[in-house]
Each structure stands twice: as structure tokens, then as C-alpha cells.
């Protein structure tokens, strides 16, 4: 104990500087933790977290006995997995391709234009999607009509929306990921390519045997970070695109949108708290599992 006070005294200015930041995490991340109890209670505002009645696992039962648990969990995982797989493939391909463009003027211009959507808020993105897919005035239906195809009522056809969401994800995030992967490619030692050139290796072989293998560590880290959030739905984007349109819930309703509607539209507190706890626990276990798996394969790429 004495050692601790001694340390705090000796470096008091450093700890004082850290204090506001530590307080932030204490207040917004640690102090809400006792609220987890709400998941096991019939919460009402008057009695608060500790005064409300215990109900055991009843809140969980409500969620798991209906179709909701399966549907929202599946949609969350399925949409995120598609984001990860297709997002990575497209970004790696474009990063390699961009590196092949000779003129730096064009490289920079393409990079700027690809990066642009990253700066738009989810709600603006929702509007863009509406411009393209609105059944009455949307661009897609105009194209279909030009090709003499029947117009599609997109906003009532759930089947299309995972594809559309993945398209939106690629549209918004490719620019960012390309910069990330390009940083790795640019950092690759030129001598490797020069040695390969002496051996008469062609462009595709260089990409296949030098660039791609050296991109793997970056891909693993980016994928791990994304996988850590796989139980968390892309709330802001999905809610701004789908909103409360029940016709699309079958494929697009993720855990986060379900929780939001339960709290805000239904006014329920306890059941969504249980769903949130289930989500947090699954996410936490999944991160541990991912990290453990990566450690098994290659210790250097693990996050912690």
C-alpha cells in the first residue's frame, strides 16, 4: 500500500492528467455495469435497479421462446460475416490494382473518389439508398423500365436487402480499407520484387507469391477487429435504411435494431436488457475464441 501511495505521489501530475479520461471510462463504461441486473428483474423507474422485483430468467425466456432470438442473431451474424468476407475481398483487390496504376495523379484521384462515401453519415447513406431503390421514383426501377423489365417494389421485398446492405457497406468502406492495405503494400521491400523480376517472374506471380502473402497479417488484424464486433449489428446504417419498415425485418432485423424498437417503440426495459446482456456475453466469448485461435496459428498476429 505504501508503495502505491509513493508511486501516486511521485508521478502525481501524470495521474492527474490521466484522471479525466479514467473518469470517463469509469462513468460511461463501468458504472452502468450493475444495470446488468435489470436483465433479471421486472424493471420499473420508481423502484430503480435494486428495488425492482426479481424475475429470474423470464426476460430471456420471452426472447428465446419466440422466433426473435434466432432471427435477429442469424441476421446479425450473417450480415456481418458478409461484410467481412466481401468487404475484404473487394478492398484487397482494389488495393493491389491501385498499386498497379502507373500515373500517381490517377492513383490519388481514384483514392479520393473511392474514399468519399466514408465521410457521409449513416442517415445520409439511408437517403442515397432511397434515391436508388425507391419504387416510385428510384433510379433502379427507371433502369429496369428502360430495359423493359417490370419495376420491383424494393421496400417490401425482404429478399434483396442483405445484398443491398453488403453493397452499401462496400460502397462506404472500400476507400478506407484500400488505404489501409495500400499502406502495407507500399511498405513491402522493393528488393523482393526486384529479385523476383531477375528470376523472370510475371506480374500475377508477383502478386500471388509476394504481395498477397505479405498482406495476410494486416488482413488478419482487420478481420479480428471486425470479428470482435460480429454480434453487434450495424445499427445506424440499418436503422436509417430500413427504419420501422416491418416488411424487411425478416432479413434485416439485427439484435441492435430489435433492442432499440423494444425500448423506444414498445417502452420495454427488462427484456431488451436481457437481449443486450446475451449480445455482450456472446461478443465477449467470441473475441476470446478468435484471439485464442489466432494465437494457436501464429502468436504474433494475436491482439492480446
Amino acid at each position, binding site marked *: 500500500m505504501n508503495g502505491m501511495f509513493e508511486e501516486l505521489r511521485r*508521478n502525481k501530475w*501524470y*495521474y492527474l*492528467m*490521466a484522471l*479525466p*479520461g479514467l473518469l*470517463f*471510462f469509469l462513468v*460511461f463504461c463501468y*458504472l*452502468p455495469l*450493475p*444495470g*446488468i441486473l*435489470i*436483465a433479471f428483474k421486472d424493471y420499473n*423507474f420508481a423502484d*430503480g*435497479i435494486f428495488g425492482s422485483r426479481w424475475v429470474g430468467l423470464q426476460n430471456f425466456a420471452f426472447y428465446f421462446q419466440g422466433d426473435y432470438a434466432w432471427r435477429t442473431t442469424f441476421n446479425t451474424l450473417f450480415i456481418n460475416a458478409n461484410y467481412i468476407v466481401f468487404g475484404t475481398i473487394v478492398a484487397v483487390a*482494389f488495393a493491389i*490494382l491501385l498499386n498497379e*496504376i502507373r500515373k500517381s495523379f490517377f492513383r490519388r484521384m*481514384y483514392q479520393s*473518389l*473511392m*474514399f*468519399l*462515401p466514408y*465521410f*457521409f*453519415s449513416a*442517415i*445520409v447513406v*439511408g*437517403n*442515397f439508398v432511397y*434515391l*436508388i431503390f*425507391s419504387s*416510385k*421514383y*428510384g*433510379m433502379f426501377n*427507371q433502369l429496369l423500365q428502360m430495359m423493359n423489365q417490370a419495376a420491383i417494389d424494393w421496400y417490401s421485398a425482404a429478399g434483396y436487402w442483405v445484398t443491398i446492405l453488403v453493397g452499401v457497406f462496400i460502397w462506404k468502406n*472500400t476507400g*478506407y480499407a484500400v*488505404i*489501409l492495405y495500400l*499502406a502495407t503494400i507500399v511498405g513491402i521491400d522493393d528488393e523482393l520484387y526486384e529479385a523476383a523480376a531477375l528470376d523472370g517472374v510475371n506480374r500475377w506471380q508477383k502478386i500471388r507469391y509476394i504481395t498477397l502473402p505479405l498482406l495476410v497479417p494486416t488482413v488478419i488484424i482487420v478481420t479480428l477487429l471486425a470479428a*470482435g464486433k460480429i454480434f453487434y449489428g450495424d*445499427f445506424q446504417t440499418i436503422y*436509417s435504411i430500413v427504419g420501422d419498415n416491418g416488411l424487411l425485418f425478416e432479413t434485416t432485423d439485427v439484435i441492435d435494431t430489435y*433492442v432499440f424498437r423494444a425500448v*423506444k417503440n414498445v417502452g420495454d426495459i427488462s427484456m431488451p*436488457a436481457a437481449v*443486450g446482456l446475451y*449480445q*455482450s456475453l456472446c461478443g*465477449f466469448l467470441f473475441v476470446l475464441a478468435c484471439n485464442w485461435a489466432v494465437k494457436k496459428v501464429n502468436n504474433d498476429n494475436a491482439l492480446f
Partner: protein
Amino acid sequence: MTAPKKRVSISQAIFHTIFIAFCAFTTIPFLLTVMVSISGESSVFKNGYSLFPETFSLDAYRLIFSGDEIWNGYLISIIVTLSGTVLGLLISAMLANAMAMPKVKYRNGIALFIFITMIFNAGLVPWYIFITKYLHLKDTIAALILPMLINPFNVFLIRNYFKSLPPALLESAEIEGAGPFYTFTRILLPLSGPIIATVALFISLAYWNDWGLALWLIDSRELYPLQFMLFKIQSMINFMSSSGNMVSGSQTLPSETAQMAMVLITIGPIMLVYPFIQKYFVKGIMIGAVKG
């Protein structure tokens, strides 16, 4: 010798075509928004959303700027973005400073304290209850700022940058008798220009674009930030069109074009600064990628 050169330029042509197609994909929604916002409402009703509208009109902008609400929304968004960025950046950098100093014994304990919040949280409901019932932040401007003040990723990014600076600089400052505040403000921060600029830009972009906090925590119209105003307009129009209340071809309310004008008004400031700040974002992502 001409044959291989020609083959190269063909593959270059293919690459350029692919990029031009993809860049069209990333920019067309924005261009379409611009065109719809300045087209006459009647040409939207007639031809749908088009990049080449038949009639032009600025009625949508006139309608939006005629009220006070839009100015109020701008004011809220600017206040939130500025104060959130300044406070968040300062607090993050001070925290990173303590975590980067080898002589601070509990620096790894601090890092763990922050890291845990990245992999486990109580969930939205306890967070919401705590903020509304215990902190009483609901429907205050602080609710739009405080809950997202610090992003742990940024703290680690700054800490890694501080760590990469030559320690001799700080040691010599200390020998000269400089205190921790002096070294932080006069030596560490000026040497960390690129990372500070990047984190500042990422924080301000996050604040400017956020509407999740308003969605959960704001009820009063006078506290709506721009993005949330846009959300309200969008859900109102969606509701009206789905319940069939909207009068087709109505002259008084240019709703379709107004919605798109509103989109442009919220992203206008970003588009204005984008050409100048873009390179700092690129630099920042690269620093983050290399230092991990």
C-alpha cells in the same frame, strides 16, 4: 520492343476502366442528390429521380432556409462538434501521455482498464438507464457530447505515437527542470502534429455525423443536431408516403426535393473541407496501420 509495351498499356486501360466504374459507383448517389435537390418538384413526379432534370428550381432551399430550425440545427451541430473535439482530444492526449511514460508504474494497469471496455460492455439498456436516471443527461446538450467523448482506439493510437518519439528528448527536458505539463504541452504535442491532427479530424467527423445519441437521448426540437433533423424529415416522409397521405404533385410542399436539399445542407461543410483534409485522414490511417 513495341509489342510488350503495348500489352502493358492495354492492362493499364483495363485497370483505369475498372477504377472509373467504381468511382462512378461511389460518387453517383451524391451527384444524384445534388441534381434532385435543384430540380423542380414536378419533374421528379414526372420522370423520377434523375441526373438530368427537366426543370430547375431552388424552392427546396428557399423552403428550408425560410425557417429558424435549420440555423438552430447548424448551431447545435457546430457546438457539439467543436466542444466534443477539443475536450475529447485534450483528454485522450493527456491519458495517452500517462500511458506512454515508462516511469509511470501503473501505465499498463490504465491500459487494461481501458482495454476491458473495448471487449465487454453492459449493453445499451444499462447505459441508457444510467445516463437518463442517474446522470440526468436526457434532453441536455451534454447528452450529445459526453457519452462519446473518448474513443479507446484513439487513446491507443496517440499512446503508440508518443511511445515512438525518441525518449532522449523528454529526458533532456526533464534534466533542464521542465515539469510534466511543460513537456506535454511544449514538447510532446508539437512533435505529434500529424497524429493529433488526424485524431482531431476523426473525432469531429464522428460528432458531426452522429445521430444515435440524439435518437436515444434528445426529445426537444431545439436540441436537434442537423443529422437528426434529417432523420426526422426522412421518417416523416416515409411515414406519409407509406400511409398514402401525401398529395401527389402538391405545389406547396416540395417534399422530395426538400429532403435531398436537406441532405446536401448536412454534408455541405464536409464537402467544402474534404479536398483539404482528405490527405490527413489518409496519413492517419497509414500511421494506424503501420503502428497497429
